[in-house]
């Protein structure tokens, strides 16, 4: 029952592997992934038509307060280059 940070990422599907590598690097090795996310952002529309190479994935993970900064520093170059969303909110974790 800890108060933790709940991190949400929406990133291009083709960036999933490098992003997970960085998540694990900073010790956030528990996460959930929802694939086939579509939407619209600064880089235009993200769809799953054709081969799905423009679709996005949604990643949910948690961390103790403060560590979200570490992750952000790690991910920032990727986010800047390939786009994506990085949201942090507060939550209480009963099991995670």
């Amino acid at each position: 029952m800890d108060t933790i940070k709940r991190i949400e990422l929406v990133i291009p599907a083709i960036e999933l592997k490098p992003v997970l590598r960085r998540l694990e690097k900073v010790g956030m090795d528990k996460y959930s992934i929802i694939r086939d996310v579509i939407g619209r952002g600064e880089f235009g529309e993200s769809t799953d038509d054709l081969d799905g190479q423009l679709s996005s994935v949604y990643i949910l993970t948690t961390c103790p307060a403060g560590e979200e900064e570490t992750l952000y520093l790690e991910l920032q170059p990727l986010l800047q280059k390939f786009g994506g969303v990085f949201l942090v909110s507060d939550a209480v974790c009963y099991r995670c």
Partner: protein
Amino acid sequence: MEFNLILSNILNPPVLFFFVGLLAVWVKSDLEIPQPLPKLFSLYLLFAIGFKGGHEIVESGFTPEVGATLVAAVLMACVVPIYSFFILKLKLDIYNAGAIAATYGSISAVTFITASALLTNLEISFGGHMVAALALMESPAIVVGIFLVRMFVPQGEASLEESEKGGWSEVLREACLNGSVFLLVSSLVIGLVTGNSGWVKIKPFSDELFYGVLCFFLLDMGLIAARRINDLKKAGAFVIGFSVAMPVLNAVIGIGLSRLLGLSVGNALLFAVLCGSASYIAVPAAMRMSVPEANPSLYISMALALTFPFNIIVGIPIYLQIIKLVWN
């Protein structure tokens, strides 16, 4: 004569289903083919065309014509993106020019398949090695395109990219090992090594369903192309002109080369179509990673919403007409 060919091309069920897809979007029907069904169709088509190609190479053997065709194929895949790049750079920035150049240097398997369906229809024969040419032409343009971008972009800007993407070896690996090329080549090799006994067992699956699956795939392509056409409204006349003129130019050069190499009518058409078509799957996927500065909805939409329909509907029969005129 020529009009007749266009008509008999259009009256093919697969091409008509492409129109159905376009129409569905224009009249705002809610018809759609959700993922991963299109993926299933494309896996199937690559499998079928690869296997059949391998089988036919066994039948025909590896002749000098085959060798010459494959060399010419790789050559065109390297040269097309170079001159395309310099044309595109007249109006576009380097990133977009490079990405679009790569797109047009590569090929569209479905355009090839549609052309081969027309040939089968008209009972004009062609060689299984053309599938090998298709496979060989898919990736080189990716490498050339990235190379051109790196050449022309000021040093500093490209540096992050290199470190992130692991440089050339990584790019080369991904270009040659994208899923489509990999499945196509594997199927070709398996068709080759399993010979007639393999072919007999696979044929009812890979040959007899081919037409029907192609109809569904082109239906989906029609749906996507119609939706993508909006992306091009903002793009100017230059981009639209390029999307139609470039395939014709490339196809005509391909026809010239075919003539020099003494290819048959069927093989010449397929070679022209390979040169004249543009990639909307493998190359965009690679460019999205390697040249993220370029605009995917621009290069995908050019290849998919203009060049692809153009080739499918009028390009293929026109190229065939030209070949027939020149060959006779």
